[in-house]
């Protein structure tokens, strides 16, 4: 097992998440893709933790924090999407362009 | 034949077509057959003389300037009428005279509107003088004159006999006829490059020695290449390269080419593709590398990168084309990319590849434009989506189109392969002074480009040749290849196969000259 095989997997996962965030129209799907990016970060944190044999297990602890924050983010995010959906009966990101001139 | 070798031979090959043009002018306008006959005779004699030249040529000493002469011309600026032939220019001279004959044969029965054969034939002959003149000139000013002589007939050919479809010009937004837009774009674009080129020539002249000892002679300048150093050489090379690059054309200076080819009448496209594009690459080999070898090395990576971008870019653009002629035009950009890649390696393999690539592209793309012209003449459309089943309607023409497509995608055994493959091969071990890693990357990308090339040509074949013919062609008169087309195309097919099977036809002349050129320029 070399370190890089995990890191490259994480990078690929992250890139796919980025792709999803940029290419999806539906807001729920965008949120799902954000989860992919977070999962990639988690993976790399744990890999670094194990690769450097961290005494304090900082990588794992931070990945736990990320899991918790992700849960909060999903909750809030879905609530916002719900609200938007109620007001505009659509969850498509590209229709939310009221900020434009 | 002492007179032939002492410079008269070459001069005859250069100026006989011009004499022919004058004779055609003297023939009354109504006697079209006579005009054609006169033009054909002059072209044939010129071609015959160039064959004599090729036979008399001493292949054992192909690096030497042969059949040359030098006469005083514009003594005020020290410019002489210096001409000569070596192994590099010989194949291109034969190619030019050969294509000229075929163009006239083809024109016999195929006149674009407005009719006026007299004018058209004169333009072809003047063009021939310009083309051959560029290849034999050994004096920078003489070279420049011939280089520009080529421009004018082509401008008129596109502007008068060109495609009359109305188009909206991008950016400017004006609606105009295709031929007008294309001819002006072609003329101005090339002239823009030539201006820089002339600037470069003059700069070289003033650096070539103390007053009184200055020269425009290419051979002499190459011998004094030590004088051109530093940022002076850098900028001179840039100016020359810009002028040549427009003519080749190298990405991103290529946009005149698809428009000009699409708009030009068939013979115009053929001459443009077969010979005119070679003027730029030839100038790189003849002028830039020997006179400014150090700068050639400095600029080589940039040229190589642009060449490879051109290969990929042109292939992708081809995939998007719906117009058959425009597709072939874009494919020229890709093929010239391989030629430039060969030149950019600055090795003897690469330069040989470039020259054989030039000759091969001349015969192959010439044939493709002939066929595309004849097809659009019969179908009255070039839209590939409206064609189909051509193989059934016109089997012989379909087969010839197939053969030329195969040659164009670089099938071994046909001419196109050697230029492509040897350019890639040369890119693996470029000149010792260049970054091998970069060129190896370019080699891989260029090799991928061959796949895309195959893709667009095969898809074109599928759209045009295969399938069942559409019902709309039921009553239309679609006769297969006629005798003039046959006479014009069979020689091209024969030469495609001959060069493909036995590349020594070209490299036998070029190799000695190229090896010597590389040795003189880069030492070792």
């Amino acid at each position, binding site marked *: 097992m070399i370190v890089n095989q995990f890191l490259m997997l994480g990078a690929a996962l992250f890139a796919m998440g980025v792709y999803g*965030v940029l290419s999806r129209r539906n807001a729920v799907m*965008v949120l799902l893709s954000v989860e992919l990016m977070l999962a990639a970060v988690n993976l790399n944190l744990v890999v670094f933790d194990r690769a450097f044999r961290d005494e304090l297990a900082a990588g794992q602890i931070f990945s736990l924090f990320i899991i918790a924050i992700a849960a909060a983010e999903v909750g809030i995010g879905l609530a916002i999407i719900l609200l938007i959906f109620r007001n505009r009966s659509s969850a498509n*990101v*590209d229709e*939310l*362009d009221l*900020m434009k*001139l | 034949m002492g007179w032939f070798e002492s410079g008269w031979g070459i001069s005859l090959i250069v100026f006989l077509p011009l004499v022919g043009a004058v004779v055609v002018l003297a023939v009354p306008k109504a006697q079209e057959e006579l005009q054609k006959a006169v033009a054909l005779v002059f072209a044939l004699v010129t071609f015959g003389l160039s064959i004599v030249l090729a036979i008399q040529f001493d292949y054992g000493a192909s690096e030497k300037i042969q059949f040359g002469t030098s006469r005083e011309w514009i003594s005020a600026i020290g410019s002489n009428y210096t001409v000569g032939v070596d192994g590099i220019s010989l194949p291109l001279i034969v190619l030019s005279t050969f294509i000229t004959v075929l163009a006239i044969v083809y024109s016999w029965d195929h006149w674009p509107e407005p009719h006026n054969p007299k004018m058209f034939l004169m333009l072809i002959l003047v063009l021939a003088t310009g083309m051959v003149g560029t290849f034999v000139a050994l004096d920078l000013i003489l070279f420049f004159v011939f280089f520009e002589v080529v421009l004018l007939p082509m401008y008129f050919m596109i502007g008068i006999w060109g495609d009359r479809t109305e188009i909206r*010009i*991008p*950016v*400017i937004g004006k609606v105009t006829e295709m031929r007008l837009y294309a001819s002006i*774009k072609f003329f101005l674009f090339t002239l823009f490059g030539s201006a820089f080129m002339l600037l470069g020539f003059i700069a070289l002249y003033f650096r070539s020695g103390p007053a009184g000892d200055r020269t425009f002679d290419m051979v002499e300048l190459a011998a004094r290449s030590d004088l051109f150093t530093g940022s002076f050489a850098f900028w001179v090379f840039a100016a020359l390269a810009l002028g040549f690059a427009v003519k080749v054309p190298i990405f*991103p200076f290529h*946009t005149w080419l698809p428009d000009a080819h699409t708009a030009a009448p068939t013979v115009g496209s053929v001459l443009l593709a077969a010979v005119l594009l070679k003027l730029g690459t030839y100038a790189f080999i003849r002028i830039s590398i020997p006179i400014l070898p150090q700068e050639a090395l400095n600029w080589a990576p940039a040229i190589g990168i642009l060449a490879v971008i051109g290969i990929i*870019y042109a292939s*992708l*653009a081809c*995939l*998007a*084309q719906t117009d058959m002629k425009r597709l072939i035009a874009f494919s020229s950009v890709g093929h010239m990319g391989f030629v430039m890649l060969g030149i950019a390696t600055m090795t*003897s*393999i690469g*330069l*040989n590849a470039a020259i054989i690539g030039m000759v091969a592209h001349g015969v192959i793309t010439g044939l493709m434009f002939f066929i595309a012209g004849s097809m659009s003449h019969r179908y009255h459309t070039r839209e590939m989506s409206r064609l189909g*089943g051509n193989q*059934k309607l016109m089997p012989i023409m379909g087969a010839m189109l197939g053969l030329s497509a195969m040659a164009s995608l670089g*099938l*071994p*055994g046909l001419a196109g*392969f*050697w230029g492509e*493959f*040897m350019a*890639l*091969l040369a890119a*693996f071990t470029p000149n010792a002074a260049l970054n091998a890693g970069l060129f190896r990357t370019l*080699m*891989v990308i260029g*090799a991928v480009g*061959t*796949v*895309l090339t*195959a*893709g667009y040509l*095969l*898809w074109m074949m*599928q759209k045009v*040749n*295969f*399938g*069942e013919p559409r019902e709309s062609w039921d009553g239309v008169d679609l006769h297969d290849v006629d005798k003039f087309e046959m006479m014009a195309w069979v020689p091209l097919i024969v030469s495609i196969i001959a060069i493909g*099977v*036995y*590349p*020594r036809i070209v*490299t*036998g002349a070029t*190799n000695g000259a190229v*090896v010597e050129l590389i040795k003189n320029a880069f030492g070792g």
Partner: protein
Amino acid sequence: MPMLALLATNANQLILATEELGEINDGGLLASLAWLIPVVPLLAAFAIVFFGRRMRYKGWELAMGAMGFVGIYGIVLAFATMNSEITYQGAITMGEFGPLVLEWGWMVDGLSSMMYFVVGVVGSLVFIYAKSYMAGDIRFTWFFASFSLFAGGMLVLVAAPNLIQLIVGWELVGVASYLLIGHYWEDHDNSSAAIKAFLVNKVADVGLFIGAIIIGTTAGTFRFSEILSQVAAGENDLLKKFAFLGGLALFIAAMGKSAQFPLHVWLPDAMAGPTPVSALMHAATMVTAGIYLLGRMFPLYFVEGYAVDVRPIIMIIGALTLFLMGLIALVQTDLKKVLAYSTLSQLGYMVAAMGAGAYTAALFHLFTHAFFKSLLFLGAGSVIHSVHSNEMTDMGGLRKYMPTTFKTFVIGSLALAGIVPLAGFWSKDEILVSFGDASGGAANFALYLSIAGAFITALYMTRAVYLTFFGEYKGQGTPHESPKMMTVPLVVLAGFSVVAGLINMPGITAWFTELTAVRFTVMGDHHPTEINFVMAGLGLTAALAGIVIGYLLWSKDAETQQARDTFRIPVLYPLLKRKYYIDDLYMDGIVRPLRGPVARSVDWFNGHVIDLFVNGAGALAKFVGKYVYRFDQSGLDSAITASAAATGAGGSVLRLLQSGRVQQYAVMIFAGTVVLVAGFIIF
């Protein structure tokens, strides 16, 4: 004669010995005239194009004559080479590129003689068959012209003594394949299949180009004999440095021509061509070109310090191919497609064996496979000829109507399944033994998959035989036995399928081993000196189990036959039916985007961005001209107007950035991050 080195191996280990060979037998006139072998079919192809229509048999006689000449010459050469160990190469110069001299040449050694033999003999039989099969075809003459072009190209490839000529033959074969797959080009699907075959091969050719360039340039020569003797001598450090890359690139080329996963997609579609084409090109000869290349360059992959690291990759790719493609064959309903996937699977065996270092075993399987697979294809053609359908659902019960075809097809199937003592058993057994002898994880992987593959092979062939020849006839009209001209080649090939294995039985005969070991750079064989009962037993058991289970599944009467044909295992069935979605991946992931959005955006870029500068320069010149004129006329006032106009224009361009779309901003943020980080890393 160039310097020769002797490479000898025993079963497990390679021992380098650089002793000079004794007197070389150059074969005299027999070998020096071998240039006729590729040239005659090529000339025949040209002659057929120009004169074929006017001849009595419309050009067939020319093609047949050329092929028969090759067949006889091949037989003579094979025996002569085996008896007197001929190694000969001739060359004439075709051009000079600086230091590089381009040569056209021909070589005679064991490997090439074996291939001449296979191409000539199988080719002659297929040509005899094709005259009857193709009778009445609208492009009969053109068919034989292309077929002769193929034979010529293949023989140019086999005869090539250098890498560049190999490329020439390689591509000629590819274009002939394109022409023949697209023979019925009125149908859009057929021409698309032809294009697919050409393009996939062209992708692999990138590997061939690069591999040939790397190996040839670093070795300083493109001649096989000289490259390989450098490999044997082990002196060229540059070659050592690049051997892995070069070897890998050449293997990619082999993957394309020999249709290895994941470049296999063209071969099943290539069944769009007429059946004789499938028999000769897509079973016996053209697809083995990749194996031939690996065999030709074998020392490069085998000698320590060169491309040995490619071997696990070769084994894994081969093993994956043989297993995955065999599975697909189970769900095909088109008889030719079953055989096509079977060919893929068998090619996987050969490739994996090359990877395991079993030079002889791989070539031996190539040799036997050529006979029984072309037999099966021709048998399928005979069936299709009388049923007028490729679908097995239209067949059934043909045993009664077509006895000769039935018998020969069963012999071919048993040979393919590897039943003792037919040809397939001996060659497959040698491959299994070679996996067992090779060490490392990849070899074990290949061993397990190839035993499973033997089971699957027997299973799908049993299925094909039962669905085609047993039960009730379900098609239109009354089927009939094919004419003599078609059945005679079947019988001859069936004879070969029975006896071809007997020439290389472990411990008893070693003629094939001796033949293929005749090389400039000689290497020992991988021929087991005694039979390995464990491996033979495993392989045979797997095959018999496959036949028995196939019998149980498909031997029942006509009604259930139809029902049992679609044994739909969830997940697996759609996966197999859609060919692991690889075709969809290529089409939707690469081809369509390239032809559609990418190409269009490049074209758009050309017209709107580059021309923006060109036309913009023109427009600017006109604009400036106008203002210069007005300035000339009316003074400075216009400058102010112009600056205001410029500001306004700039603003309207910048306004486009503020689209209000979150994801566009996100694109800019991510792209900016990439650029900045890349900048920080680089500078």
